């Protein structure tokens, strides 16, 4: 019922949506989230992004998060795809799709999975930023305190 995929290949949102809905006539609700590479972050123009991860732990961590979501809400399908490696502005980084007979459960689980992923799954972003002088430099993206705060609402 769960599909968890960590990969370098581009992410196809249409295909991932199709995967959660195919032959799924029991769940009337599907909540999804897509995170993409923005062109601007922390005051600088972003030219691209590379995602480092901890290969042995990444999938294990995502599986644990999805299992915990299933323990909290009645879910149908869960499809979680996360890219690693180099990517461009506007590329999709992450897709989470959750189906359920209940709208509230689908929304809550989708948001819960993202909140946990953002604080626990071993991914690290490194941006290429363009400075005003035209030079490019690479920098690690800083974690945000708000992500930790969001997690606390789930108790």
């Amino acid at each position, binding site marked *: 019922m769960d599909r968890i995929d960590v990969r370098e290949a581009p992410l196809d949102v249409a295909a991932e949506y199709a995967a959660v809905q195919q032959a799924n006539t029991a769940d009337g609700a599907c909540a999804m989230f897509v*995170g993409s590479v923005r062109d601007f972050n922390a005051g600088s123009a972003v030219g691209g992004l590379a*995602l*480092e*991860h*901890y290969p*042995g*732990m990444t999938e*294990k*961590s995502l599986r644990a998060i999805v299992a915990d979501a299933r323990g909290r809400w009645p879910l149908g399908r869960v499809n979680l795809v*996360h890219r690693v490696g180099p990517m461009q502005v506007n590329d999709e*980084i*992450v897709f989470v799709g959750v189906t359920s007979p209940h709208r509230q459960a689908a929304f809550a689980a989708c948001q819960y999975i*993202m909140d946990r*992923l*953002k*604080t*626990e*799954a*071993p*991914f*690290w*972003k*490194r941006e290429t930023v363009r400075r005003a002088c035209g030079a490019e430099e690479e920098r*690690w*993206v*800083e*974690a945000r305190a708000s992500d930790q705060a969001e997690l606390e609402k789930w108790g």
Partner: protein
Amino acid sequence: MIKVLFFARLRQQLGMGELRLEDFSGTVRSLCAVLCEKYPQWREHLDDDAIRVAVNQELADSDAAVAAGDEVAFFPPVTGG
């Protein structure tokens, strides 16, 4: 033998991604102390409350036990999604 891994900015700061340690048994905290003794220039990067630790690929705290055969990873706060 303990396998120790470093990721992302921490890997770059330490200039090392992986090392192996013979004959260690203790906690994450004492492992960290052993490493900082061996590489004093690591202290400012490794002995930092923001650094997270996983033992055998699961998040752990500084009291977690570490013994032969374990894999311990140190890394900065995660920024995926």
